[in-house]
C-alpha cells in the first residue's frame, strides 16, 4: 500500500512502458531528475529487477528502501508489479512477455489514479508488436485508459503538446483507409469538444481551434472528396453553435503553416504528428483528453534499436512530467 499524500508536489505515476524498450531508462532519468522532482512526486510502476539492471547499464546507483527507490539523492515511491526480469526480457527484443508486462504496469498506474493515490499518470512508450504478441487487444494507451476508467473509447483522444503546436487526433492507431471510414460527425464533434475542454483546463480562455480537412485543399468544394462537406463541416457548425471558437475545415498544410490557432484537430495520425515532429521530434508530449484522469505519454516510440544502451533522450518524458504537473488544473 502506498503512503498517503504528504506534500504539495503533484503525484505522478510513471509506468515504465515496454521493459525491453527505452522506457526503464527514460523513467529513471525522469523520476530522479532534479528539475522534475521539484514539481512532481514520482511513483514508479514497473519491475524492480528490470530497473536495477537498467541502472547498472547506466552506471548509476539505485536502491530499494521500503516502498521507495533511492537514486542520486532523490526518492521515488515504487510499485513493484513483479511480472518480468532481465532473465526473460532482453532489451530491444519483441516478446509477448514484454507486451503483457507493459499492459500490467499501465493498468496498475491507471488504477492508482482511479483510486486517488496519484494525480496523474505518465506512461513510457509501449511496443505495439509486443502487446499484439501477448494477444491483448490494444490500440494505444488511450483505449486502455478508456476501458479502465469506464469511459467510452469514442470520447478519449490523444493531444500532442509541443512548440508551437497542440494537436488533438480525431483518429489514431488505425490504417489510413480505416481512419477515413471512422470519421463521423459525432467523432469529429467529440474531438473538437475534447480540444476545447483540454485547452480550457490549461488556462486558455475561449481557445482558438483550427480543424483540418481530410482531403487535399480540404476537398476544394467537393472536387477531391466529400468528407469536408458531409462530416467535418457539420461538426464545426455544431461546435460553433455551442459557442466554441472553432474554424474549419481548412487545408491541413495551410492551417499548420498559419500557426494562428491555440489547438488543432487532425483527422488522422500522421496529419497531426508530421507538423509536431517537423519542429520538435523528441520533445512532444501526448496527453489523453476526454477521460476523468489526467494521463500523459510521449510522441516517440520505444526505440528498440537503442534500448538498454544508455543513449535514449529523456527530454520528452521530462517535459511531459512538468507539463502535467504545471499546466493542467
Amino acid at each position, binding site marked *: 500500500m502506498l503512503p498517503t499524500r504528504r506534500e504539495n508536489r503533484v503525484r505522478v505515476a510513471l509506468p515504465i512502458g515496454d521493459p525491453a524498450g527505452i522506457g526503464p531508462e527514460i523513467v529513471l532519468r525522469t523520476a530522479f531528475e532534479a528539475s522534475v522532482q521539484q514539481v512532481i512526486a514520482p511513483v514508479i510502476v514497473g519491475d524492480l529487477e528490470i530497473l536495477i539492471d537498467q541502472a547498472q547499464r547506466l552506471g548509476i546507483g539505485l536502491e530499494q528502501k521500503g516502498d521507495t527507490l533511492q537514486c542520486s539523492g532523490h526518492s521515488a515511491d515504487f510499485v513493484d508489479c513483479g511480472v518480468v526480469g532481465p532473465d526473460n526480457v532482453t532489451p530491444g527484443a519483441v516478446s509477448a512477455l514484454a507486451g503483457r508486462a507493459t499492459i500490467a504496469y499501465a493498468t496498475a498506474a491507471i488504477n492508482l489514479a482511479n483510486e486517488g493515490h496519484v494525480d496523474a499518470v505518465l506512461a513510457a512508450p509501449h511496443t505495439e508488436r509486443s502487446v499484439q504478441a501477448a494477444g491483448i487487444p490494444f490500440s494505444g494507451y488511450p483505449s486502455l485508459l478508456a476501458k479502465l476508467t469506464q469511459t467510452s473509447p469514442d470520447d478519449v483522444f490523444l493531444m500532442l503538446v509541443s512548440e508551437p503546436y497542440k494537436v488533438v487526433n480525431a483518429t489514431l492507431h488505425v490504417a489510413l483507409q*480505416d481512419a477515413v471510414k471512422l470519421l463521423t460527425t459525432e467523432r469529429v464533434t467529440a474531438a473538437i469538444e475534447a480540444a476545447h475542454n483540454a485547452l480550457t483546463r490549461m488556462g486558455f480562455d475561449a481557445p482558438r481551434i483550427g480543424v483540418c480537412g481530410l482531403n487535399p485543399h480540404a476537398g476544394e468544394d467537393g472536387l477531391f472528396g466529400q468528407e469536408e462537406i458531409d462530416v467535418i463541416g457539420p461538426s464545426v457548425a455544431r461546435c460553433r453553435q455551442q459557442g466554441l471558437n472553432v474554424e474549419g475545415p481548412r487545408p491541413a498544410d495551410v492551417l499548420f*503553416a498559419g500557426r494562428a490557432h491555440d489547438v488543432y484537430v487532425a483527422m488522422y495520425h500522421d496529419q497531426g504528428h508530421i507538423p509536431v515532429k517537423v519542429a520538435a521530434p523528441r520533445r512532444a508530449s501526448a496527453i489523453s483528453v476526454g477521460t476523468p484522469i489526467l494521463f500523459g505519454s510521449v510522441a516517440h516510440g520505444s526505440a528498440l534499436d537503442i534500448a538498454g544502451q544508455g543513449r535514449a533522450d529523456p527530454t520528452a518524458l521530462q517535459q511531459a512530467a512538468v507539463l502535467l504537473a504545471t499546466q493542467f488544473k
Partner: protein
Amino acid sequence: MTFDNASSAPMRHFPIAVTMGEPAGIGGEIACMAWARYANELPPLILIDDPDRIAQLANVIGCPVNVESVSNAADAGAVWPDAIPVLPTSLPAPVEPGRINPANAQAVIASLDRAIALATSGDVAAVVTNPIQKSVLYGAGFDEPGHTEYLAKATKADSAPVMMLTGPELRVVPVTIHTSLADAVQALRTEDIVHCAIVTADALRTEFGIARPRLAIAALNPHAGEDGALGGEESSIIAPAVAQIRAAGIDASGPAAADTLFHPEARRSHDAVICMYHDQALIPLKTLDFHRSVNVTLGLPIIRTSPDHGTALDIAGTGRADPTSFVEAVKLAAFLAARRQQSAAAA
C-alpha cells in the same frame, strides 16, 4: 541544410517565359512585383500576356512597372531589366481582379501553348507557369487535370511527368496528388511509386547536380503500418517498390513512418522524400517554409516551374499577394536552364 538554387546559376541572356495564368488571379501582379523588387537579380523574363492590362494592373496595386511590348522572345534580353518585356496575347474580355470571366479562358490556354512552343524551339530557356483556375479551362478545351499533364501531352513527354515541390530545406514528391484521401489510398500502386522515384533520382542527378541522390520513401500508415498491425500497404505495395527502386541502382530507404522523415536530422539524410499522398508532402513543406516552396515538373523535355500556390482570387488586385514563391520559381528555372546549357556545351 538549405538548397540555394540560384547560387551556382550564372546570369544568362536567354529569357524565361511566364504564362498569363488566370488573369483574374494574382499571376500578373506577382510578376510585376518580382520585376519591381528583383529585376537586377533575376534573368530576363518575358510575359505572355496583354501588355495594357499588365500596365494597368501594376498601377492598381501601386507597383508601377515599365512594360514593353516585344514581337519575339529574342528581344526580351535587350529590354530587361529596364522594363518587363511582354509578348502580346489578346484578352477578349476586360479583366476584373477576383472575378473569373470564362470568355478569357482561350487566352489563358493560348499563353500556355505559346510558352510551350517557345521552350520547345529553344527561344526561351524555361517556362514559369502562373496559377490557373482549372474549372474554367475545362470548358474551353483544356482536357487535362492540370498543368503537369497538359505539359506532358503538349511536349510529347516519354512518360508521365512527376511533380516535385522544393523548399529551402526539403524536397518532396507526392505519388498521388489531387484526389480524395480515400481514393489516394485505393489508387496507390507499386509501379507509380517506382516511376516517381526513378524520374526523381534521374532529375536530381542530371538536372540538380546531386551525384548520388538519396531518396526516402514514406509509408502510408501510422508507424509505417507496424508490420501490418496498422495497415498492409507497406508490405504489399511500398516495400516491393523500394526493392525495385534499389534494384535500379538508386539509394533508397523505406517505407519509413512519415512523421519521422522531416525533422532536421532526418532531412540531412535524404535529398528528397517520395510521399504517398498530397498532404503528407505538403504539410512538412509548408510547415517549414510557407512562402518559398516551388513546384517543378520532372521528366519533361522542357524546363517548367511554378509558384506553389493558387490563383488567390480573394486578394487579387489588392497588392497583398506575396511574390516570394514566384521569384523562387524563376530562380529555380534559371538554375536548371543554366545546368542544361552547361551539359549541352560539354556534350
